[in-house]
């Protein structure tokens, strides 16, 4: 909760402020095969959540904000990305 001091100045707050990541929304998970990536940057451009980072030879994928929309997978021209069921077989429930 905000402090009294902040509340008194009105609903104008410093940004960004992220109460949560959105990775938890994901039902499907993109899996990157870096070896296939030719660094065309399609995923980097098209991911609505900005989950990819450009690196020297291939992109990397950070799932903190990934919602599993599947766009990166659909747009990757080299099939370097695949979509798997998140927590399939309730995996994550058991894992942790």
């Amino acid at each position, binding site marked *: 909760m905000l402090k009294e001091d902040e509340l008194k100045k009105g609903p104008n707050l410093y940004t960004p402020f992220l109460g949560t990541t959105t990775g*938890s*929304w994901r*039902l499907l998970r993109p899996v990157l095969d870096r070896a296939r990536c030719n660094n065309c940057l399609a995923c980097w451009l098209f991911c609505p959540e900005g989950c990819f980072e450009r690196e020297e030879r291939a992109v990397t994928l950070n799932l903190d904000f990934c919602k*599993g929309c599947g766009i990166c997978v659909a747009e990757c021209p080299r099939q370097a990305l695949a979509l798997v069921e998140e*927590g399939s077989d*309730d995996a*994550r*429930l*058991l894992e*942790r």
Partner: protein
Amino acid sequence: MLQIRWHGRGGQGAVTAARIFGLAAALYAGWYAQSFPSFGTERRGAPVTAFTRLDDRPIRDRSQIYNPDYIVVLDATLLETTDVFAGLAPGGIVLINSSREVAGGRIPAGVRLHYLDATHLAREVLEVPIVNTAMVGALAGVSGLLPAEAVTRAIADVLPEGLADKNAAVARRAYELAGEGTGKPGAAYHDSRPV
């Protein structure tokens, strides 16, 4: 008064489930009922809740539900990010869509857990993994609050014609599985652990 909280994700139909259950109770099972969504806009994928209240006298309380008697979880992955058990009334019943048991750590004491692999069931009957009607049927069965008839008629009222029949079938099957109470994963069963 009995209070039910439904957990799902935007797009999974938790709100419709709450409504179908309420309608079934109100129009076809002699209850007074009230149902409402978690207030707000639901984005696809974001956790959402919905609520149903049943009583044998008119329901006048308009406040939110903090201490549900029943909790229905349409999507087990929510257990990881949401405290689905929050405020559960002592002795409360939890119904989870899952093919296997949930690890014990986060489950409060005194809770009665039921499982249904609704995803599997829905895939079988509906050919899509939409589980809300299955879970409605399951809750009716597990709780004994409504007859299967009430649920299927409510589904016919709420869903568009093309969808109603199959969903009614799914709900009825889930209802029956609950009745069987086999305790086997993949069916509705009562948790055997002494909790």
